[in-house]
């Protein structure tokens, strides 16, 4: 018979390296047509980080995402970056990119201030314009300011900056210190059906409520969460590299290494928790890794809820779940006989 269960699991996860310096640098150029170019040494590995960085630079310059072209991942042409690791790109490279854009913007303000008859500190950017605070009708198109900066002032608006998360080394004896600049938090709840005659687990639904600070791009955040959950489902139920006693892999191929297909994935519902980190770019933290952290725990707790067995070894294959159910029944039978 199929038995239904639900399980909850929450988690915390840090952004960036453990204490170790993991800086990012960035260069932002504001072009004469009001678009911008970002140079970053990070690598697009599928997360959409280049789009997120474009959005951060665009926000800082008051232009649209499409106006920012990102040049990335070339040690000859792009500045130093610790890379696509440790869920750090939005926070660390994002901060560096925002700071670089801010510096380019400062040049724009310096150039625009006399043209608008105010001090640079009285300017802001919005909707492709440099405008006077409180008097948005007094404005110049950002492209015109950039052109002026280049051809009149002789000062092309280019900014470069770097960022490294603030940490404090850990005491070697007690491990006390500040290993990370910030953390994200999340909860996932899984609903499963467990076939108590075979041990087969079907994950029906996962509700995921994730903190990433400000979601720079909610669609990409959802994409990360959904993908992380698929990795979590595999970790919970299916995936394992197996070895012979003499240390060779038994299943090094996708026929025998079992990862989730579309038929194995549950319905996923993603919520983004309202949150703002003042140390992140526009309040953002990050989202890459944390998405797969609590899935297995939630599923295993749901299995426990459904059939009352605690599987303590991953993956919780049907055979492991079945063995646990069988052992529990044998135990109960013994108690009844004894009683």
């Amino acid at each position, binding site marked *: 018979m199929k038995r239904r269960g639900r399980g909850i699991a929450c988690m915390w996860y840090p952004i960036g390296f453990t204490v170790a310096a993991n800086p990012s640098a960035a260069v932002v150029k504001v072009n004469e047509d009001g678009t911008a170019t970002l140079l970053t040494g990070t690598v697009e590995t599928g997360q959409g980080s280049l789009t997120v960085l474009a959005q951060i630079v665009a926000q800082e310059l008051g232009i649209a995402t499409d106006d920012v072209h990102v040049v990335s991942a070339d040690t000859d042409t792009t500045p130093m970056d610790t890379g696509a690791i440790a869920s750090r790109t939005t926070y660390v490279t994002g901060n560096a990119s925002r700071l670089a854009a801010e510096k380019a913007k400062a040049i724009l303000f310096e150039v625009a201030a006399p043209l608008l008859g105010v001090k640079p500190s009285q300017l802001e950017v919005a909707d492709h314009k440099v405008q006077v605070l409180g008097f948005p009708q007094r404005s110049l198109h950002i492209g015109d300011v950039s052109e002026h900066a280049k051809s009149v002032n002789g000062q092309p608006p280019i900014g470069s900056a770097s960022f490294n998360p603030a940490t404090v080394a850990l005491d070697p004896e007690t491990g006390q210190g500040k290993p990370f600049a910030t953390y994200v938090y999340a909860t996932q709840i899984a609903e499963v059906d467990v076939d108590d005659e*075979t041990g087969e687990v079907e994950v029906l639904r996962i509700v995921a409520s994730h903190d990433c600070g400000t979601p720079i791009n909610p669609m990409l955040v959802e994409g990360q969460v959904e993908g992380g959950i698929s990795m979590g489902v595999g970790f919970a139920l299916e995936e394992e590299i197996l070895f012979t006693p003499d240390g060779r892999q*038994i299943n090094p191929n996708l026929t025998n290494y079992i990862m989730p*297909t579309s038929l194995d994935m549950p319905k996923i519902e993603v919520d983004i928790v309202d949150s703002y980190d003042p140390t992140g770019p526009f309040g953002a933290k990050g989202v890459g890794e944390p998405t797969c952290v609590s899935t297995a725990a939630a599923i295993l707790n749901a299995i426990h809820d459904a059939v009352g067995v605690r599987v303590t070894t991953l993956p919780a294959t049907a055979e492991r779940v079945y063995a646990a159910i069988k052992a529990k029944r044998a135990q109960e039978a013994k108690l009844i006989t004894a009683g």
Partner: protein
Amino acid sequence: MKAFEFVAAKDAQHAVALLAQHGPTSKVLAGGTDLLADLKFSSHAPPSVVVDISRAAGLNELKMTEEGLSIGALVTHTQIMQSPIMRDQFPALIEAAHTIGAVQTRNLGTLGGNLVTAVPSVDSGPTLVALDAIVTVLGPSGRRSMPLAEFFVGPRKTALRHDELLVEILIPKASVGKPTAFLKFGLRKGQALALVNVAGSFWVDWGKQAFVAPRVALGAVAPKVIHATSAEAYLDGRAISPEAMVEAGRLAAGDAKPITDFRASAEYRRDLIAVLTKRALEGAYELAKAKRAEQK
């Protein structure tokens, strides 16, 4: 892939002639889903010649004849799934075809090719064995036929001689429309290999409410697809009841000789056989009842 020659056969006769011509180092290629995967990562010497029969004429038809349902060896799993005859008479074969690989492999893979692999877990096997299917092979000296259960000899071994070609699978008239259910248990839902697969099939004597000509066929739990003979003997003529189905499952588990490998233990496979056999029999009974209701 290591080098080999490629020759396309026009029809079955031509294929057999080519096999005779090129000798034992030639290999037949149909859908290619197993053969090519093997050739790429196998340490064995490559075949000298690959005889492609994928477009050999006359082997991809699925039709009702005087003898029963004739399925050409090159009928793909997708063809089976989309066949109205299958839907009406053999839904279990559609189930079985559906569990093979994924759409892409089902579009390429053929029933004949699947059976010829003779892997113990062959998904097309149990249902056809339960339906007493007969296979026909063509060789230099003509055609010969045998029950599918005998065609399977052992793991990756069939009764097929090197210069022979499997050409037809026949489900005899006596099995047409026989209520049958197929169940497969794999390690995941998509693209799964079977830990155990089971087909249960029987006619119902409605007067006596009894099993008639019961068949239980098991895959992946012995060197080849087998009949669970003691379960079949137990059910034959017995009154239909949930208890009987449970007992048949228990007996079927005893009939199997599962192994322990990295996918599952023998013990687990045995317990799965009991459950799946029971459920397959329940499924077949449900079908029988539904069919009867329809006829009334």
